């Protein structure tokens, strides 16, 4: 296998972005996926950062955070946080990326508390913009390490709402349509055709049973499930250009 799992995840995430889309970009793998999409099949996409930066070109130097000085240079727009968030709330953001500590079968994400919130076993950092992206983007992409404790039947705390307890939940609580369209992990890709995660593909080196073993819910296969499409040579060349030292894709 001439690539790392991180590179495969970036390529898989990039394929989820369509041309001309407005993408709420996080750091690390999502940012690479955004710029990979732009360089390949989606030259008209624009990236939006919640700190107030909108840009379409990679920054002149690598970023550790979205507020690093190079991210402002050459930006299309720069201002406050309410403007990018308003784009979300106006439903002008097509796709947003979310990570988290736990995700469940309905794509709900916990990034707040493990255990009882009043006396948590682990206090996680919290939502940041994740809950807003999950509430308001037209669709979201979940990016997570694959681990049985992280992919759980039901999260103990819903920080970022997915499909709640299943079909109809979002509109019942007042959320606009949206929710996860894919969960891309270090082992596999899931889809949510009816609000519930179905296994669509497994990455090289794994099979469906491996995924089942490492997933906290009863895994069901999507129609036509099979191996994940590997990154193309072009994908890899661009990723290596965007992340020359492999900080994010190869550590």
């Amino acid at each position, binding site marked *: 296998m001439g690539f790392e799992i991180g590179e495969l995840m970036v390529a898989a995430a990039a394929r989820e972005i369509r041309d001309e889309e407005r993408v709420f970009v996080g750091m690390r793998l999502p940012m690479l996926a955004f710029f990979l999409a732009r360089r390949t099949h989606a030259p008209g996409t624009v990236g939006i*950062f*919640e*700190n*107030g*930066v909108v840009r379409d070109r990679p920054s*002149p130097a690598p970023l*550790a*955070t*979205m*507020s*690093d*000085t190079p*991210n*402002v*240079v050459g930006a299309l727009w*720069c*201002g*406050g*946080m*309410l403007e990018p*968030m308003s784009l*979300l*709330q106006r439903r002008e953001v097509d796709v947003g990326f979310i990570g988290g500590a736990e995700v469940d079968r309905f794509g709900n994400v916990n990034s*707040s508390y493990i255990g009882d*919130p009043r*006396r*948590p*076993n*682990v*206090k*996680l*950092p*919290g*939502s*940041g*913009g*994740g*809950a*807003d992206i*999950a*509430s*308001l983007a037209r669709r979201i992409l979940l990016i997570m390490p694959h681990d049985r404790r992280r992919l759980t039947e039901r999260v103990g*705390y*819903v*920080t*970022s*709402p997915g499909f*709640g307890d299943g079909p109809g*939940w*979002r509109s019942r*609580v*007042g*959320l*606009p349509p949206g929710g996860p369209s894919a969960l891309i992990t270090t082992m596999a890709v899931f889809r949510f055709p009816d609000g519930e995660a179905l296994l669509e593909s497994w990455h090289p080196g794994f099979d469906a049973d491996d995924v089942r073993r490492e997933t906290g819910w009863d895994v069901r296969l999507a129609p036509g499930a099979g191996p994940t499409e590997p990154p193309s040579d072009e994908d890899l060349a661009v990723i290596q250009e965007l992340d020359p030292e492999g900080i994010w894709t190869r550590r």
Partner: protein
Amino acid sequence: MSKLVTMGEAVAELVPDGSSVVMGTCLESMIPFAAGHELIRRGRRDLTLIGPISDILFDQLIGAGCVARVEAAWVGNVSAGLGHGYRRAAEQGRPRRIEIVDHSNLSIALGLHAGALGVPFLPTRSLLGSDIAAGSAAFEEQRDPWSDDRLLAVRAIRPDIAIVAVQRSDEEGDAHVWGNLGVTHDAVMAAERVILLAEEIVGADEIRSDPNRVLVPGFRVSAVVHSPGACHPSPVQGRYRRDHDSYGAYHEATRDEDGFADWLREWVLDVPDRDAYLELLGPRWEELRDLHEALAAPVDYGW
């Protein structure tokens, strides 16, 4: 009338025990660490910290026992993930219990925006169905009077004090700021008092030459502290880069309480002021200030 004071004076007079303080308003940049360290040195207690993403500043204040309550969207270490100080307080009540009011980035922005606009709340379509809103005193479900759609009312946040950094200010608090601004504008408008940490003090005419870039009318500013390097290890556009290694080093050093105490002594308690802190950084500080220039295109306000 000059509002120039030292950091010690600003903190002593304007941030008593029990204050609610908004900081870290630009997100990962322009975080007023120098003011946070002064709060720690002065042994401030029972503070409420307000901010979207405070990076390790809030973690430090919580670990030092200054904090009773946190209203934030995210508290941790942006480079390393979890913040040990925050975890110890939330999980074990050490060095003390803290109350946590969870927000998202949008909800804390709207709370401050409501404070800035002078209204008791603002409505949002976000967070419906999130446990962040469930049972929280910061939110109330409501209905749109026209469509009857469900909405969430976010209660106004009016901090006692906003502490924000700016690239340059005059002595009266008329200041220019540039780069990503996060919730800075609303924080400064919503707060009862404002302390500016200025990288540079300039003449009033320089500020007035570009009134569109002024953060806030100076009459809303209570004190101006001339404090170059106040935001290290976070970056300031046009002044210095982010010192990524500092975040990793803090993460490693503060894994247990003894380590935190050692870190605090070395970088805060035994350091009299910001100049001494920058000296402690050694040649690294010089390197972080070695920037690529990127000048804004000229603008003529001709009349």
